[in-house]
Structures are given as structure tokens and as C-alpha cells.
């Protein structure tokens, strides 16, 4: 965050921005905004013990948007001259069918986000390439030291430094500086001609120090190596309906896929979500309370403000099993007559705002995690996952385990190969019978895709027991 408004860094004056805003906000336009963004991303990567790739990308542009009723007009430009702004403004307001001619917009109140979740002075993203190279080399050595069966280590360190300014027709001029970084490690293990892989990583709106504190980066290396070695001895996964215990942290991707997307306001306004009309109804067992919270310091899904300049917040989605709220942006909140929750997000100035999740997690319960595992006679214990996906309309969702074990007679026994779990969003949480007291947030690697747009998100979960879900292995 820091500066009040960084308009100068885009070579523009407040007067020019206001004039463009006035040009979009013609009579029949309900709301208009300009989103200025400049982004520098850097990446260094290593494989075969060589740090041999380095890339850097610089992008800058403006997205101009007008909404009228349910309609959105949108244009973007990577040129920021007065003429380009005017051209974009004329395109965006096309949907309003209003006579052209500028309207006065209220003089904006220059604001600064009320929170500072990733203070610039602490979140140092600019690091000498040599330091990043040294970090990756140490990761390679650590993973290979873990076990001689580790044959290749691939690691990458990515940083992004984004400066945004949002000017809105409802009178806000606000800016934010949004750093983001991620360290990712993948190991390939080989034994008797058989190969397996394991991955681990972490990050957030954090600086380079985050990875060095307590030798986090070495832990990532060991975890990736451990998963690869473990999978060498994994047996085929079971197939069919069975109880599943999910470990804490990243398995919270369950919430993201099963209910999070289904509670995004756009699908519910259009009544194309399996959750449409379920507000106030039971969609989970009473041990489940789930929130979306964009205000956690330094987390990957956190933001001081969303991409419409609204402060982020904490929204209760499900309270003791009852559906309480949707995730909204300004357009959908206005059309549905419900509160703006600060979840209007976009991948870049080239994309439109959509209601999106931030950090989505289940609050801790009261059960002892060990007791949860002991309660299962035959089932699956899944602690790490790859990606997931959902069909919003019929509510069916999947997520794929990358580290899982059989539970036999209340004990965790053999590791099993990855398998996809499939369930129905509005039903699955009604089958959660135990929630652990061990809430954990993920390490900070999540990216969510919607309508072709990727945004960073977080998830979290305590250990939970799902009484039944279909496990897509091959063994009956």
C-alpha cells in the first residue's frame, strides 16, 4: 500500500482521469470505473541442478468499464494517452445507448486502503538475482540429500509487483501496491525403472525473508522429496463410496470447489448455480462454519482492497450448516440488493471484474484429529491435493489427491496412488460428521481459474471426516 494514489506513475493527472470517467458515465450508465495497473513479474527456475532460466515481464494498461442494468461494457488499452482513454471510454459506454456527451462525476475522495496487510517496507520483492539463484541451488542440494532416489529437482521462484489505481463514478480514487511471490519445488524419484513425482511449495504477499525464516525453503525441498519417495511405494487407490478423512490446510480446496464457486453472486443472480435459492437453508452439517476472509495479513488470497476499490472483509458463507451469504462484487450486489463484500476481482486490466474468492476456510471444531482417524474402519486419509474443478449448475465437483493413505481398522496404513474424489456441492458438507480443532491454512500456492481468468487464492481446513464420498481409484 503506502502512497495515497500512484497516478503519477502512470503519467496521468487526476483531471485527465476524471474527464475520462465523466465520458464513460453517461446518463444511462449506473456505474463506471477505470482500473490502472502496472505489473512487473520475475521468475528464476532451476532443473538438473542448474539455474538456467530467468525471465522478467513488464505490463501496464488501463481497463475502462461501464455497467447499465445487467449490461457491462468494457475496453482496455496498453497505451495511457488521453486519446486512448477517450477511445476506451467511448467503447465501454456503447452498451448504455445514451446520447453521448460527458456527465459530471462526483469529485472523488482520494483514499488510502484502511488496512495494510502487506506493508511495502517489509515485503521486499526486489532481491538480487544472485540471492534467488543461491536459494534454488540450496533447494536442489537439500532434496537430493533427502534420498539418493531423487533424480531430478525442479524449482522456481516467482515474484510479482503490482501497482493499481481505481477511479470510480461513485466517488472513490484509491490505490494499492500488491506484492506476491511463490516458491515451488517438484522432485522426480526413480527406483527399479519406476518413476514418481512429488511437489511442494508456498508463498503469499510476502518478501524474500519469508522463505529464509526458519529455513522454510529447505522444508519445501524435503516435503517435495518425501512425497515423491512415498509415492514410489504407493498401491492402487480404491474405487467406490467410502468414508474419507481430509487433513488440514490445502485439502480445503474441497470448500473452494464444493461450495465456494457455487456461492459466487453472478451464478446466483443468474440462477444457474446449484445453490440458487438456498439462502437460509441447511447445506452442511451443524459442525460446519465456513468463511471467506480477504483480510489475513500476508496471505496469498488477501487484499487491502478488491479491484473495485472496496475494502476486503470477512464474509460468513455457512454458519453451523446454514447458508448465510454470497460473495459479491458491485454489479451483482446492486442487482441482487445484497451487501458488497469486497470480492470484485480481475486477473489484470485486460479482464472484467467477477465475484471471486479470497481465502476460504472452515473454522476449527472440537474433535481430536487422531480420534477422527480412529473412527474410520475402512477409508481414505488424504493430506495433499492437486487441482479441482466444479460444474456450478449441477453442483458436481472433483478434486484430486496427490498424497493419500488407506485407513484400515482405525489406523493409517499404506500410501495409495493419486485418485480423484467426486461429490455434489450442496450435499457433501451435510456428510461432514467430525471437525478437528486443528485449523490450518494452506502454504500459499493456490490459483483459481474462472472464465479464463486466474487469480491467487487461499484455502484452509481442520482435519475433517466425510462419512461418504466417491473415490475414483481402480481397486474394488
Amino acid at each position: 500500500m503506502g502512497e495515497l494514489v500512484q497516478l503519477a506513475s502512470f503519467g496521468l493527472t487526476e483531471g485527465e482521469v476524471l474527464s475520462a470517467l465523466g465520458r464513460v458515465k453517461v446518463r444511462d450508465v449506473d456505474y463506471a470505473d477505470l482500473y490502472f495497473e502496472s505489473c512487473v513479474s520475475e521468475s528464476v527456475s532451476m532443473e538438473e541442478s542448474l539455474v538456467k532460466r530467468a525471465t522478467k515481464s513488464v505490463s501496464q494498461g488501463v481497463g475502462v468499464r461501464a455497467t447499465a442494468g445487467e449490461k457491462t461494457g468494457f475496453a482496455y488499452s496498453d497505451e495511457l494517452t488521453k486519446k486512448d482513454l477517450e477511445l476506451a471510454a467511448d467503447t465501454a459506454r456503447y452498451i448504455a445507448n445514451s446520447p453521448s456527451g460527458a456527465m459530471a462525476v462526483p469529485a472523488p475522495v482520494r483514499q488510502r486502503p484502511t488496512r495494510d496487510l502487506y506493508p511495502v517496507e517489509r515485503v521486499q520483492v526486489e532481491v538480487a538475482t544472485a540471492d534467488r539463484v543461491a536459494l534454488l541451488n540450496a533447494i536442489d542440494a537439500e532434496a537430493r540429500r533427502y534420498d539418493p532416489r531423487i533424480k531430478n529437482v525442479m524449482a522456481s521462484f516467482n515474484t510479482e509487483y503490482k501497482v493499481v489505481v481505481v477511479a470510480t463514478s461513485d466517488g472513490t480514487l484509491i490505490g494499492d501496491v500488491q506484492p506476491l511471490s511463490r516458491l515451488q519445488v517438484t522432485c522426480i524419484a526413480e527406483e527399479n525403472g519406476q518413476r514418481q513425482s512429488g511437489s511442494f511449495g508456498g508463498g503469499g504477499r510476502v518478501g524474500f525473508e519469508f522463505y529464509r525464516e526458519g529455513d522454510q525453503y529447505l522444508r519445501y525441498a524435503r516435503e517435495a522429496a518425501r512425497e515423491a519417495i512415498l509415492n514410489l511405494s504407493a498401491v492402487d487407490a480404491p474405487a467406490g463410496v467410502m468414508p474419507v478423512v481430509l487433513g488440514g490446510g490445502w485439502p480445503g480446496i474441497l470448500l473452494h470447489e464444493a461450495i465456494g464457486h457455487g456461492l459466487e453472486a453472478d451464478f446466483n443472480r443468474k440462477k444457474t448455480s446449484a445453490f440458487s435459492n438456498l439462502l437460509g437453508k441447511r447445506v452442511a452439517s451443524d459442525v460446519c462454519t465456513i468463511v471467506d476472509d480477504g483480510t489475513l495479513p500476508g496471505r496469498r488470497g488477501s487484499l487491502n482492497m478488491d479491484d473495485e476499490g472496496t475494502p476486503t472483509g470477512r464474509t460468513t458463507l455457512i454458519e453451523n450448516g446454514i447458508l448465510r451469504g454470497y460473495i459479491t462484487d458491485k454489479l451483482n450486489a446492486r442487482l441482487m440488493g445484497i451487501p458488497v463484500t469486497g470480492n470484485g476481482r480481475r486477473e489484470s486490466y485486460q479482464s472484467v471484474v467477477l465475484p471471486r474468492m479470497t481465502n476460504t476456510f472452515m473454522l476449527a471444531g472440537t474433535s481430536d484429529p487422531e480420534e477422527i482417524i480412529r473412527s474410520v474402519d475402512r477409508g481414505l486419509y488424504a493430506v495433499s491435493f492437486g487441482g479441482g474443478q466444479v460444474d456450478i449448475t449441477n453442483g458436481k465437483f472433483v478434486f484430486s489427491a496427490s498424497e493419500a493413505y488407506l485407513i484400515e481398522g482405525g489406523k493409517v496404513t499404506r500410501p495409495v496412488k493419486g485418485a480423484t474424489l467426486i461429490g455434489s456441492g450442496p450435499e457433501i458438507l451435510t456428510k461432514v460428521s467430525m471437525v478437528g480443532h486443528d485449523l490450518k491454512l494452506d502454504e500459499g500456492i493456490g490459483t483459481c481459474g474462472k472464465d479464463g481468468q486466474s487469480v491467487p487464492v487461499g484455502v484452509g481446513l481442520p482435519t475433517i471426516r466425510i462419512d461418504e464420498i466417491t473415490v475414483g481409484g481402480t481397486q474394488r
Partner: protein
Amino acid sequence: MNQQLQQRESYSQLALDLLAKAKRSGATEADIIIADGETFSVQVRLGAVDRLTKAREKHLGLRVFVGKRSASTSTSDFSADSLNQLVNETCTLAKAVVEDPVSGLPAADQMAGARPELDLFDPTRLSTEQQIDLAKRVEAAAMSTDERVTNSEGGDFDSSSGRVVLGNSHGFLGEYQSSSFSMAASPVATDPATGAMQRDSWYDVQRKFSKLATPEAVGLEAARRTVRKLGARKVATQRVPVVFDAEMAGSLMGNLCGAVSGYALYKGASFLAGQLGQPLAPDYVTVYDDGRVVGGLGSRPFDGEGLPTRKTTVVERGVLKSYLLDTYSGRKLGMASTGNASRSVGENPSVGPTNFYLAPGTKTAQEIIKTVQQGLYVTDLIGFGINMVTGDYSRGASGFWIEGGELAYPVEEITIAGNLKEMFAGIEMVGSDLVFRGRIASPTVKICEMTVAGS
């Protein structure tokens, strides 16, 4: 037109200037890619415009080599100051990484020479109103055919055109223009008995506007695919034959394409590592990657490094004949590039398909379904449950249960699982219905047996 020509010449000149500047800043070799384009996109929902987007964009990517060290950068800011800084930063960055013995441009004598006419560009310019009208028509067609279609995620029409200029320090300078037009409908149907909803979609995409299917045809197909899913149920866990419809069989070709990518292979991250020359599938399975299909969605005259594109036989009568390679991954494997360098501005080249497809057989989809007594016809897959290192495969599926050679009822909330190697070996039939709606395509495919997990 005149202005376009000027711009084209100025981008070529810009490429030459920056290559010269890179040399002066210490680069021993360099290449540069400049891409610009226009996009238009409209989504109509329930008969009214929901979202309209219009933009022009441009991007420039620079890759330099300082001896055997290399770095890549990109920017959308073409001002002289910014570009000067970019060149300097790229050279500095390259000096910070280690030497990589196989890095470097392709050999100078390998660069693409005479360019084939691939007919990738259609100058048709549609007005905003015309495009809105097409989006309205595709949605209206989807909504009008069956009263169980009650809602819509929208009708879409998109058009784009762009140009790529690629140059390198060997003196190669090439450019081409391309365009695309696409249309889609995503209706929602409601089961009158239960109130349960289903959504599906259908689309077409072509380089030439005149080749695009009519909005009515696309809309009707979208409605047909949506309504037929109503009443879907789970089935019991069992092992059965699985028929992949052409779209989903295309996803299997996508998996194969990933597994034959040179990068996955040299890292040991593909289940096909070391399998060249080995049988992969029965002898009626032949797979091509053809960068020279006239008007093809994956066609281009030269690849992301300026090497000529070509037709590569990836699988010939069941035998794995070729990997897909760019210069770097080829050198790592001791092989020549297959002209498959794919280059997104700002990234290092990677390997990508051009037009990658399974050659069609002779049976219709219906004839293939007829051969199945009890089994699954897959029309939708979700999730990412594929381990490319081992080939282990487990994905969420929906489609139809086959009984006695007929589609009996729709199914959902099931998974299909197996191993890609066994699945390719187990291809029992290949359909005749190959249609390109993207870079990767396949006809209907029947796989002899997979595990279906359900209730």
C-alpha cells in the same frame, strides 16, 4: 491499409534495431517476437447484451544469449526509453544465471525459408451490431428448441486478428497475420420433475468467418447436449468398456501431446520417456501433428524460433515414431527440432502442438456404441487427476450408460480411472468423425476397459 503497412514495416524495423542493440549490450545471439492484435467479444444473456469487450494490444518479447547463458523479458511499453532499459536488463539477467551447454538459437541454416500460403487471415470486419446479432441468434436458437431449456449462461461471439513478427540475430525475419471467429451457446435446462439443473455448451471456431457454422446449428446442438443430461444418475462401481465422444477423445490426444513434449521427456516427467520406437497402441492408431494444414487453427508458417513447421507422424500404425521438440529440448535428447517451438511473449520457448490429431477410422460413433453391451459413453470430463510421470488417470466424468448397444440413460457423479499407457494400448475402435474445433482433435474412441467408480 497504408497505415497497417507502415506499422508492419515499423515493427520489422523495431525488431532489427533491438537485435542490434542487444548485440551492442553484450549479447552473442538474440531473438525477438512482437505480437499485436485486436479483440472483440460479446456475450448476450436472455436476449440482451451482458458484456461487450473491445481492445487492441501489443507485446514484445526479447531473448538474449550471452555465450551459453540466457534470459527472456517482455513488455507492453514500446517507448524508446523502456525498450532500451529492457535490452540492458535482459543482458544483465542473462549474466546472472549459469551456463547451459545446450542453450542457443537454432542453427542458422535451419531457419524457415520460403513461406507457404496457409490462409490464416480473413480480412472480414464485422460491425459491433452484426456480432451482437450473431450472439443473440446463437442463444435464441439454444433457448427455442425445447421448453426444458429454462435459462442461459449466454450466447457468445468473439473475433480477433493479430500479427506476429519474429526476428533473430542469424538474420531471420518473418511475419504472419491470423484471425479467428468463434461462437458458443451455454443453455441451462431444468428437469420438470425434480427441479435439478444441467448445463452444457456447444461452439464453433474458424479462421474464416465464412467457414463458421450457422448460429442456429450451434445453438440447437448446445440445447440437444444440455437437455439430454436431465435425469442423470450414478451407476455402481465396475469395470466396463468406455467410449469417449470426439470432444473427450480430443482430451486424450491432449494428454498424449503433453507426454510426447520434449521438455517432459528430458526431465523424466513423462510416462513415455524412453519409449520411442515402441508400440503404444494397436496398428489402427496413427497420430499426426501437422503445422501446414491450410486454414488450420494450429497452423503457422514458422514456429516460435523461426524454424519451418511441418507434418510429423507422432504415432504410426501404433508405434511411437516421434516426439514433439523445439531446439532446446531436442538438443537435450540428442534429436533435431520438429518445428514445435511455441512461444508466448515473455516466456522461453516451450513445445506446443500445431494441428495434433488422431487419424480417423471408418466407423460412425453410433456403430461404435452398438458394439458395447454394458459400458459408458463419456461426454464430459472434469478435474486434473492425471499424473504425467506415471500415466495414472482418474477424472470426474458424465455421459450416458450404454445397455445393449444403445444409450440408455444419462449418468453423472462418477469417475473413470486407469493408466494412460494401458488406455492407449486398449484402444479398440477409432471413429470416422474427426472435426477440428481447435489445435487438438480426435474422432470417437472406444477403450476396452476402465474402472468406473460410482455408488
